[in-house]
């Protein structure tokens, strides 16, 4: 696939390297040092860093400003953008704002429902959905047009991503849904955290059979488990998460003080196995409020050092 934007992530993928991405959640306050400190922990071990957009609908520093702080440090950000909180005016406006800071990656999401967060009595917007946001960014970038038809001076140059969940029900539309996102114009995918590797490989095989892995870069999502409690929580409480009993049992099988280490080992083994699967273009390492573990995971998985890109 030829390179269409100045995105470092796109260049790395186009050069045939397996990319490594990670993510940082902005703080519940305005101190930029929080986001800088998280970025410092991982910057040498990942290619780009996603900044979440008010994840779980809890109000935080905005993704756009946080991306700017990363950019100033020389770390390439991926702007996550949810359709929950902004109408098409605000979405396009924020895309231009990001483009003005030369932010070259965007991840288009619908966002968790606001009832999970700290503003449960608030409105949601969903003027567009995530697929329509993908289409919007591609229109703005490729045709230099606004949704309203007007011309954009200095259009955004963004590599366009989205999420995919191979585990969610109904299974029968998981690959069709990926195909639909590709038809909308998505260029890279970061998946939901993978614990059920068999199911992930089945999904990917189906995508390969349809030729979809030739059309989109799929980054496999991994999250190290900190404890058996976290494994159970992910299994039972987080919608669309598939944590097999064996994984919970494996975490439960080691003493409490060793569980974090076991969680990291599971994560490393997951990457090692999936590295060999055709169609896996890289890894999205989401160490939730545990950024300090990312270097160890990346090194042990054999993904370090990261390729240098101009």
């Amino acid at each position: 696939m030829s390179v269409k934007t100045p995105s470092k992530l796109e260049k790395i993928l186009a050069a045939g390297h397996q990319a490594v991405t990670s993510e940082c959640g902005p703080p519940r306050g305005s101190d930029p040092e929080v986001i800088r400190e998280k970025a410092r922990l991982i910057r040498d071990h990942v290619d780009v860093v996603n900044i979440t957009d008010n994840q779980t609908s809890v109000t935080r520093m905005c993704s756009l400003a946080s991306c700017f702080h990363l950019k100033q440090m020389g770390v390439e950000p991926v702007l996550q953008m949810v359709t929950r909180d902004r109408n098409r005016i605000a979405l396009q406006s924020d895309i231009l704002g990001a483009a003005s800071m030369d932010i070259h990656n965007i991840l288009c999401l619908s966002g968790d429902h606001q009832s999970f967060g700290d503003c449960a009595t608030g409105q949601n917007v969903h003027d567009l959905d995530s697929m329509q946001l993908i289409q919007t960014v591609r229109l703005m970038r490729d045709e230099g047009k606004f949704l309203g038809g007007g011309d954009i001076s200095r259009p955004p140059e963004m590599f366009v991503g989205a999420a995919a969940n191979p585990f969610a029900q109904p299974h029968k539309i998981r690959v069709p849904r990926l195909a639909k996102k590709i038809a909308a114009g998505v260029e890279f995918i970061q998946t939901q955290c993978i614990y059920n590797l068999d199911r992930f490989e089945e999904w990917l095989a189906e995508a390969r059979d349809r030729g979809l892995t030739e059309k989109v870069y799929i980054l496999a999502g991994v999250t190290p488990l900190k404890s058996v409690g976290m494994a159970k929580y992910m299994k039972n409480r987080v919608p669309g998460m598939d944590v097999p009993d064996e994984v919970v049992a494996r975490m439960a099988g080691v003493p409490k003080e060793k569980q974090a280490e076991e969680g990291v080992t599971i994560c490393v083994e997951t990457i090692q196995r999936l590295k060999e699967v055709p169609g896996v273009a890289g890894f999205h390492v989401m160490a939730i409020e545990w950024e300090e573990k990312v270097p160890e995971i990346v090194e042990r998985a054999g993904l370090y050092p990261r390729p240098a890109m101009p």
Partner: protein
Amino acid sequence: MIVGKQKPIEETWAMVKDFSRVLVFGCNTCVAVCHEGGNKEAQILASLMRMKATQEGLSLEIRDSGIERQCEHEFFESAEKDIEWADAVLSLACGVGVQFMVKRYPEILVYPGLDTCFLGDVEKNGLFTESCQACGKCVLAETAGICPVSRCAKRVLNGPCGGSNKGACEINKDLPCAWQLIVDRLEALGRLADYERLAPIKDWSTERAGGPRKLIHEEFMK
């Protein structure tokens, strides 16, 4: 039909208790079907309020009445005397009926006795579920006859979102995921391939976003 729910009596009582002649006024169509605002419910609420008046030693007079529909002029004739008697009306109609009375009787204070909830159906006895948001541009032809605008918590037109969980919506395990229903129905109809059609960005100017709406038939206007 329009589904509403009676406001807590503490709230409606606070609205009317300082008047001397209060009419509790039922609307005997939509909100009677959901057992909240019909003429029978008006009768019951008026009795409860009379008891409250006695308990609190207040001398206000409370009557009940009702008509078939508070949203059309032609039904009001039978209740005209009751309405003129009152110095406050507690209407058990939906928000449409309450406002229609305000327009019709500008000199009378009309208060809402219900919270108007949604446009829905009678799924079974005692169960009323939302199924339309009057967006002004129906998408049911593209969604296997199941409305994602009203039945998806994020009204996504290309669903399901990441929160669909074993057939249920992420916000409530008792709420079916509209997109699961759409996919299941497409499959049952042998039309699962239709799932891959991208729904275009919706024109929301025909819904609330475009401002209050009107339908005009000049041939019926005198």
